[in-house]
């Protein structure tokens, strides 16, 4: 009977615990990160008696949670990948939308600019058409600067996001470390798993996975160590490291992520991957910086080609053309760790070698090296020194180093990053457009031979005399060249197709001139209707000068659209795929850890009945005891 009572009581207590646990499960059905809890019932040790071993009821040995470490780690891994791609996709979409549809995009504006020059070529004296060219150029500059401004805002957004992520990660790390301590203490004290604390810690690690990829290792004392990047420790036992951001060593406006270690702060930016932080950094490096540099490359090339061509002709005032536009110069930023006293300037001298990369320029004590910041590949660099000045040539740039360099000194070279923000028209005077070529040629009216002028040019306009010349043939094989004052400036033997050079000019005559034939090579006058230079100016978009002479400005613009489109759609597709994978991983995890209300309802009914039965047992034990007491009451005196 005593056994019956204690057995019944044990059942009552056990089933009460079970119902408590079930009620806890039901209450937490929608709590994120909650693992369903189960009571583990163990039957009491039997008691020996002459009639056999009699059981001793039931006890609750422990309350454990439904948890699968493998599924949890799998879900965390997929969460990091998903968040990385999702972040990349959202940020990439900003650039994608900026480029927009082709009818209003950069390519259309460039085309309009070229066409305004073609319209001018049909009537070079029209001031309305000249003004239109200036206006189109200004529209083009506006659009480029609008894009640059959008990208600049994205850079600010990236920096803000990185700082915010880093601060979140640091805070989560500290909470995890604190929970590690609480869990080890609780576990030592009770020898039972502290389920609620464990759930909380797992939840924090899961949140951390959204921000960055992490690896976890469980210690024997119950603590979990967390590592980020390529194995850098974030949480070890009770101790959490701190992640901070600071401006990079070059003051370029980008942030670097530092990890605190016993020996000081370490820059771990290149090691970070996964999660929102990894996605943001990836966007900055692989999409944002290349896009900014590509726009800069387009600006530099356009300005250079337009200026060069304009300076090869005559403007409406009959003067040699000047440069029409300017762009921002390459920037060279010294590292804050530099110990030398040198200063470095850079200029773009070879369009064929100009890329969309930024470079690290570093000195190892004897020589300089130029390395691509994204790929780490060294660019070929030639060097020549005279006195304290060293001239370096590479990647389309000429770098001038003056002063004394110290081994280990480093600079960040950005060839085209500042080009667009510094882009402007040098003049808005419509007469400044050099539509005319420098020369106009004609054959003498009375020429009887078959000679024709094939070409006449002024290779170096800076030395041009702007005089009028006549080439006269004293015999079919001898010529003299006289200027407008009648002075002979050259003479020689005529060979068809061979250049005749005089006073910085170059003339080629072919065919068979007769004695007495002459050819006039005159300077074009002001307000000339000659459109030969304008026709060349209109064609700069198709001139293959970039990538060693293989690409034109149009090719680069097409490439930009293609690259942005591909990267964005790849990120979008990746996000969709990862989302499916995440859903699948979460389902698998939830099937083990989750709470199903129907299941809990059924168990509740089960334990409710059992509790009622156990209560019946106690009631029965009580009535049996009452029967025994009634016997004693009857016989007593």
């Amino acid at each position, binding site marked *: 009977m005593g056994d019956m009572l204690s057995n019944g009581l044990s059942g009552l207590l056990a089933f009460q615990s079970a119902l408590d646990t079930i009620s806890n499960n039901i209450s937490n*059905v*929608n709590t994120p990160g909650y693992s*369903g809890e189960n009571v583990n019932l163990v039957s009491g040790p039997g008691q020996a008696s002459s009639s056999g071993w009699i059981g001793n009821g039931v006890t609750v040995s422990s309350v454990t949670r439904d948890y699968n470490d493998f599924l949890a780690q799998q879900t965390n891994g997929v969460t990091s990948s998903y968040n990385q791609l999702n972040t990349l996709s959202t940020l990439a*979409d900003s650039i*994608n*939308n900026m*480029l*927009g*549809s*082709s*009818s209003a*995009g950069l*390519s*259309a504006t460039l*085309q309009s600019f070229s*066409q305004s020059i*073609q*319209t001018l070529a*049909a*009537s*070079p*004296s*029209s001031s309305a058409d000249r003004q239109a060219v200036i206006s189109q150029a200004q529209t083009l500059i506006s659009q480029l600067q609008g894009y640059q401004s959008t990208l600049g805002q994205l850079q600010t957004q990236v920096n803000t996001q990185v700082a915010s992520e880093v601060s979140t990660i640091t805070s989560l790390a500290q909470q995890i470390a604190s929970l590690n301590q609480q869990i080890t203490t609780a576990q030592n004290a009770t020898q039972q798993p502290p389920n609620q604390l464990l759930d909380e810690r797992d939840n924090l690690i899961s949140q951390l996975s959204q921000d960055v990829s992490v690896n976890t290792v469980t210690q024997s004392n119950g603590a979990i160590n967390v590592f980020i990047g390529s194995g850098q420790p974030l949480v070890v036992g009770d101790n959490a490291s701190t992640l901070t951001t600071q401006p990079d060593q070059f003051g370029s406006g980008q942030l670097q992520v530092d990890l605190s270690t016993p020996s000081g702060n370490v820059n771990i930016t290149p090691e970070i991957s996964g999660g929102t932080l990894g996605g943001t950094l990836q966007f900055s490096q692989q999409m944002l910086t290349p896009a900014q540099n590509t726009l800069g490359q387009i600006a530099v090339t356009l300005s250079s080609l337009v200026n060069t061509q304009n300076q090869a002709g005559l403007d409406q005032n009959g003067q040699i053309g000047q440069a029409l536009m300017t762009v921002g110069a390459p920037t060279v930023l010294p590292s804050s760790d530099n110990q030398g006293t040198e200063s470095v300037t850079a200029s773009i001298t070879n369009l064929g070698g100009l890329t969309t990369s930024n470079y690290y320029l570093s000195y190892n004590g004897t020589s300089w090296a130029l390395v691509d910041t994204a790929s780490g590949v060294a660019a070929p660099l030639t060097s020549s020194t005279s006195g304290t000045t060293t001239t370096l040539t590479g990647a389309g740039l000429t770098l001038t180093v003056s002063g004394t360099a110290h081994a280990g000194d480093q600079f960040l070279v950005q060839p085209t990053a500042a080009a667009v923000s510094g882009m402007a028209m040098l003049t808005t005077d419509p007469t400044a457009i050099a539509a*005319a070529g420098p020369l*106009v*040629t*004609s054959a003498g*009216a*009375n020429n009887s031979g078959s000679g024709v002028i094939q070409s006449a040019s002024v290779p170096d306009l800076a030395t041009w005399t702007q005089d009028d010349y006549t080439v006269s043939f004293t015999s079919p094989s001898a010529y003299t060249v006289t200027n407008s004052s009648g002075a002979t400036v050259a003479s020689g033997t005529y060979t068809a197709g061979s250049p005749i050079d005089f006073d910085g000019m170059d003339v080629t005559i072919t065919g068979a001139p007769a004695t007495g034939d002459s050819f*006039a090579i*005159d300077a*074009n*006058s002001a*307000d*000339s*209707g000659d*459109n030969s230079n304008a*026709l060349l100016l209109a064609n700069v978009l198709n001139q293959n000068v970039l990538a060693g002479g293989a690409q034109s400005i*149009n090719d680069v613009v*097409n490439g930009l*659209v*293609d690259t942005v*489109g591909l990267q*964005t*759609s790849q990120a979008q597709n990746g996000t969709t795929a990862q989302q499916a994978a995440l*859903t699948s991983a*979460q*389902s698998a995890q*939830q*099937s083990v*850890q*989750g*709470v*199903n*209300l*129907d*299941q809990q*309802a*059924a168990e509740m*009914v089960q334990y409710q009945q059992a509790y009622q039965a156990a209560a019946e047992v106690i009631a029965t034990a009580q009535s049996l005891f009452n029967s025994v007491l009634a016997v004693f009451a009857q016989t007593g005196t």
Partner: protein
Amino acid sequence: MLSTAMINELAVSGILNDETELSQTQNELSSGTSINTPADNPVGAVELQQLNNTDSQYQQYITNGQTANTRLALEQSALSSATTTLQSVQDLVVQANSGSNNTGDLKNIATQVQSLQQQLLGIANSQDARGEYLFSGYAATTQPFVVGASGAVSYVGDSGERSVPLDSSTSVQMSDPGSTVFMNVPSGNGTFTTAASSSNTGTGVIDAGSVTNASQWVADQYTITFTDASDYQVTNSAGTVVATGTYNATNGGDIAFKGIEVGITGAPVAGDTFTVSPSSTQSIFSTLNKLVDALNGAGSSSASMAQLSSQLNASQQQISQGLNQISTVTSNVGARIDLIGSVNTSLSSATTTVKTEISNLDDVDYAQATAQYSQQYTALQAAEESYASLAQLSLFKYLS
């Protein structure tokens, strides 16, 4: 087992995905284009960009063609007026050469010729709608033909010929310099000119002559001297006699030497000379000036009349040359206008092709999109309805 939270989440995310897709299809239907950003179709976006640029470029070429066409049409009209003017002068020359005019009549004719010359000068200095001169070469804002103090007309433009591109491989010249049209006209018959000496006292008249055998011609100044009324000799510039012969007026009076033939009519006397000089160039204005001078300076003697006749023959020849020159330029201009027309036609069809390609690439296929929309709408509706009924199921409902 699916946890209760997971059941709800799966259903809701399914509904949200369906909504997103439906919204995207709706966006396509309302915008009409399928490529709104590069990511919608990266390769297609680049292609679309290039097609749009090509389309724009074609429009530019067509505009160039129209600009050139306008200019060339103006030029054609000017050349036609010039031809009519010169033909009127020719008629006057015939009238003057009829032999029934006195000096007063001739002076009248001279005045008419002068007025036609003014007309021609005006045509040569015509301008287009922008005020640019048609015949001044590159010097578009400079009047090409100016009259000097002595009445001589000189050309102050240049020989530039402006061209514009009609398509990627064809250009068309949209102007001809005045030097080509009016100035550099070959003199005489193209090989030589003839003249009668003003001191002749006979009534011999020399015509323009012709080349019978070009390979025998040696360009030099030749003098035909009549030793008497029926005998002549031909000497070159060095004085060497290159031919002699008998003059017979009745059979055309042909004098042949060095591969050429000139005809003399009338009655030359001993001592009369005629010259044959190599051709050079002479401007039309110069020809007309000489004509006016000849008409004004004619005397009434028979020798003067003969002299005038020779001069009128030369003028007539020269004006023919001028008309030939203008005719050559006119047919060039006509050919260029035809070229513009044919390039324009092929550009129009090329433009249609490009626009079709753009449409194929970018336009939304409404039939397909509407069907897709309808499908997605049904799917969303089904998802929402099924979730609504699923959410009702719970064991707790059945436990009292």
